[in-house]
């Protein structure tokens, strides 16, 4: 089956859905969304807990409810979605090859592409936990899928490694469905998840949370029988003689998300080693003109609200691109973050846009900071603008605006640094 369209979107999760709606709003007619699962919404349908939409809708919604706000609009706008469709290759010339059981082999030629493939979970093998390889080892998201979508409980006595939001949410989910969650272990001295989740997922259920701990061995031949845990020092190395045995039949790994950029790599799109996602300009456009990226495939987000905003940036950008309304700057501006900022998105600013009032930036810090000034300077170290922010943590992405009028014409480098402010 050969198809042409204006915009092809890879993934019908919150990022992809948002791109589609915003592109349609900006006049793009022929949109095709390609989704590998049987339903729309990406990861949201299995995130049955509250906490979504506080910024975007000013309401607290569950994952499925948040997804539905967009899905219903997709239906209403008659935007075409092909489900159970797996993209297996994209060429740099924007030819998409996909498969599904209904249409067979699809050859799609869009004029623009939005990459919204999301991310995958880091596995036990990738963090190299020694021991045996029995049944009963799951990443938190896979366990979540079994419980909330398929309707099966994959364990009775659970140990969870990783106190991010996903790990804590799953601790509560298992506990509510009658399983025994023995403990949550966190290798860092703090949780990267919301404190709120510690309260309503762990404290409420008397599930112990141990900081500075990790799993050093998994035991069990056919099914998990126990884990050996150990305290770690500040370099995350196991401290000898602190081992303990915890009997369990299930281990959940909630140890990080990795943007799923296999297709991007194969196309030759340059990725950032820090974010794991594409290097992009302010329109979230990758190194290949007309191919955009947003959502978790670009960088791992904490709040779906920002994913939707990022999708809108791409939706508008696609419209500008397709209508040839983009105008290049004489020089690209490179955004250069310095420690302790781990990354800034976008990595560079390419366009002049008279309609644009501000550019939205996302960034993350490497360590918790109580109060700091985030300072933007040109290459001569003149301060362009400075923001004061409180309670910065690696677990919460920072969203900032850079006012258009402050960006001088011939600036080439924008240095972004953090100066900690000591509380009096």
């Amino acid at each position: 089956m050969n198809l042409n369209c204006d915009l092809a979107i890879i993934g019908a999760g919150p990022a992809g859905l948002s791109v589609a709606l915003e592109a349609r709003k900006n006049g793009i007619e022929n949109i095709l969304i390609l989704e590998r699962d049987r339903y729309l919404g990406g990861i949201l349908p299995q995130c049955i807990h509250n906490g979504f939409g506080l910024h975007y809708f000013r309401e607290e919604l569950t994952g499925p409810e948040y997804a539905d706000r967009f899905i219903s609009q997709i239906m209403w706008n008659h935007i075409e979605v092909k489900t159970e469709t797996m993209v297996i290759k994209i060429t740099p010339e924007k030819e998409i090859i996909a498969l599904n059981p209904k249409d067979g082999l699809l050859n799609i030629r869009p004029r623009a592409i939005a990459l919204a493939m999301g991310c995958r979970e880091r596995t036990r093998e990738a963090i190299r936990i020694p021991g045996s390889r029995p049944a009963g080892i799951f990443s938190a998201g896979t366990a979540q899928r079994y419980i909330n979508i398929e309707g099966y409980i994959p364990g009775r006595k659970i140990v969870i490694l990783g106190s991010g939001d996903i790990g804590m949410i799953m601790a509560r989910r298992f506990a509510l469905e009658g399983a025994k969650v023995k403990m949550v272990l966190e290798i860092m001295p703090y949780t990267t998840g919301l404190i709120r989740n510690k309260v309503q997922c762990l404290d409420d259920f008397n599930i112990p949370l141990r900081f500075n701990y990790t799993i050093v061995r998994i035991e069990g031949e056919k099914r998990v029988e126990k884990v050996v845990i150990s305290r770690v020092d500040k370099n995350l190395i196991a401290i000898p003689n602190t081992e303990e045995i915890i009997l369990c039949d299930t281990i959940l790994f909630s140890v990080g998300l990795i943007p799923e950029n296999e297709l991007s790599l194969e196309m030759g799109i340059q990725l950032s080693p820090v974010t794991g996602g594409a290097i992009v300009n302010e329109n979230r456009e990758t190194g290949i003109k007309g191919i955009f990226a947003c959502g978790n495939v670009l960088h791992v987000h904490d709040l779906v609200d920002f994913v939707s905003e990022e999708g809108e940036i791409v939706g508008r950008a696609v419209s500008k691109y397709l209508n040839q309304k983009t105008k290049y700057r004489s020089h690209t501006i490179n955004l250069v973050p310095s420690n302790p900022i781990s990354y800034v998105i976008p990595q560079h600013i390419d366009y002049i846009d008279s309609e644009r009032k501000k550019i939205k930036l996302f960034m993350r810090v490497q360590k918790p900071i109580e109060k700091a000034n985030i300072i933007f300077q040109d290459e001569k170290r003149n301060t362009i603008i400075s923001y004061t922010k409180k309670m910065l943590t690696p677990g919460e992405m920072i969203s900032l605006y850079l006012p258009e009028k402050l960006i001088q014409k011939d600036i080439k480098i924008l240095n972004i640094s953090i100066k900690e402010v000591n509380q009096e």
Partner: protein
Amino acid sequence: MKARVKNIICIRCPRGCKVAIKSKNNKIQSITGNACPLGIEYAREEFIDPKRILPTTVKVINGELPLVPVKTEKGIPKDLLFEAMKEIAELEVKAPVKIGQVIIKNLIGTGVRLIATRNINRSN
């Protein structure tokens, strides 16, 4: 009697303000640390009768998927969560299910409604 201070984290929104509840003779004297009025409400409730919103799933008959995600419209008493889960475990709802549909009008006598949070169509 002595004044006591109970330190809690407000869970009304992801901000997680550290709220301090000062009490004497089991009566609230002051609530500090909250960034918004929801925090006062939450602190009061947490002190007197802690409540939690319960998100879970209900089995579906003849649906395109075997489960529909649900949630309580408001918080229910924290110590009744497991009893609520047991009542929900006995339920089966027939597809189609509409988002917002009331699955249980009065969950274990709390007066709180359990509503669907996803559309589940009938299976082919």
